[in-house]
């Protein structure tokens, strides 16, 4: 019986570790965007590399958790929900990596006066991601707290949308080439997408939480 408890604790630790990686990914992204806007490309590329490694590690850890949950038939009632949550939060991590990779490949030119607005979008998106991770942690330990975190995620997603809208309006009101405008809109959209994905995870989480109430 103690073996069962020990194995469960190991899986518990792995889930926590995976969520730590998602948080770490968000923080790296936030800092990397700042480096990019400041023109510190070397540091930006270093962060991109770190984020790619984090994502790979996250993928590996998620697969290990999934295998353990299935092989040991742990939490049979909630297994589907937990695996769904882990997979969709992994998608959020993938989205941050992919967006940062696009910066590295496409090198968008963001007008300097729009930098604060772009940083706002990035910060709100990462705050939504952090809120999502807190909500998932609460799902495992403290169901009553899930709702509070989910509400925060919704708030940050809305703020990210507002900032993105402002950014796009500002871009399209300027005398820039149309291709440039489209390019900038594309980047704002992709950063915004991180918050959208986090919100999708929370929608899923809300249903899973209701199912877990005894």
């Amino acid at each position, binding site marked *: 019986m103690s073996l*069962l408890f020990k194995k469960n604790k190991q899986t*518990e630790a792995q889930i926590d570790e995976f969520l730590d990686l998602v948080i770490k990914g968000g923080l790296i992204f936030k800092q990397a965007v700042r480096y990019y806007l400041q023109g510190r490309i070397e540091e930006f590329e270093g962060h991109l590399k770190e984020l790619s490694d984090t994502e790979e590690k996250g993928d590996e850890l998620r697969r290990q958790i999934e295998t353990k949950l299935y092989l040991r038939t742990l939490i049979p*009632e909630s297994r589907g929900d937990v695996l769904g949550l882990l997979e969709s939060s992994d998608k959020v991590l993938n989205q941050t990596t992919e967006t940062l990779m696009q910066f590295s490949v496409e090198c968008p030119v963001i007008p300097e006066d729009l930098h604060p607005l772009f940083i706002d979008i990035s910060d709100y998106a990462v705050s939504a991601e952090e809120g999502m991770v807190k909500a998932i942690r609460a799902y495992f330990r*403290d169901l009553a707290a899930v709702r509070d975190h989910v509400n925060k995620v919704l708030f940050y997603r809305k703020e990210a949308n507002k900032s993105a809208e402002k950014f796009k309006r500002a871009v399209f009101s300027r005398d820039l080439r149309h291709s440039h405008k489209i390019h900038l809109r594309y980047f704002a959209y992709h950063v915004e997408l991180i918050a959208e994905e986090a919100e999708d995870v929370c929608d899923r989480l809300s249903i899973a939480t209701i199912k877990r109430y005894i």
Partner: protein
Amino acid sequence: MIWFFLTSGLFLGWSLGAKDAANVFGTAVGSRMVRFKTAAAVASLFVILGAVVEGAGTTATLGHLGAVNAIAGSFTVALAAGVTIAWMTRARLPVATSQAIVGGIVGWNLFTGSPTDLEVLSRIVATWLLSPLLAAIFAILLYLLFKRCLGRARIHMLRLDAYTRTGLIIVGALGSYTLGANNIANVMGVFVPASPFRDIQLFGIFTLHGTQQLFLLGALAIAVGIFTYSRRMMDSVGNDIFKLTPILAFIVVLAHTIVLFLFSSTGLQSALVALGLPTIPLVPVSSSQAIVGAIFGIGIVKGAQGVNFKLLGKIAAGWVMTPIFAGLLTFVSLFFVQNVFEQEVVHHPAAAATSIIAPEPRPNVTAPVTPLASPMQTRAGNDSLITINSSNPLPQPIN
């Protein structure tokens, strides 16, 4: 011949094992929280322990209701109860072994002209109403307690999963123990007055009474029922009939176990007597009734939206029909066993005693009215586990 007669009891035991083990471990196995082999092994072991150690209390109550004192009578009563259960299960009506056997005993009383102790009968019927009600109350209280505690404890889902698995096995073991203690009377109770077993001294340490050997045999039949046929029932209970989460399943089985324990623990009864408190009657109650009561309680406390009242009505109808049908079937079967197969379905100890005391019966002198010993005394010998039913007047056969 006696072994042939015991087969109906063994059949009843097999059906009880197949049917009622699912009440205890059904959700745990159906939801894949506990493996079937683990569940079956734990359930079998504890059913046997419960039956052998503490099966006497409820058997005594059945003995008060009617001491079926001839082996062919016991065979017929058990067979009629078994057929009733099989028929009602086939008709998809929920059925309780306790009710079938009580109906059968009353049928035997009616056929043989033995008086039915209405006080005992009303006590038994009252517990049929009381046990689901009590199970519902316990389930509600346990649900509220668990909800409060789990909300505060903030246990990680995976750790809670491990605790729940452990809890389901422990409570399943307790449930199986109380099932054996409480329900062995249904399986072997009617054979006690006609038991063929004698006391055995084991390793000079303890004595295995004749009744305990009979109960062991019945419990083994229950164990066979668990291993051979309860898998299907467990899967069905776990997935179709009531969809409970593992924690709710734990609460339901715990409530069921408490109820069965209250109605079968001789230890608890002794403790209550020692404290000068009113005792709880030791009556074989239905495991299924207790489970249904507990689930109903959970449904009510969760807002009653999910409670299927139509199904509950069907279950209640089954509870009323079972003893009536079993009683009628026993009555008819006894007629055939006695008059077609020419078997003795009721034993006359007074007549036997008379023949020993007065080998040459005098003409025009009726046999003594008061028996030297009650049917239970006569057959059970020195078996200390059996409560003597000396107040029962001599049964009169109907020819």
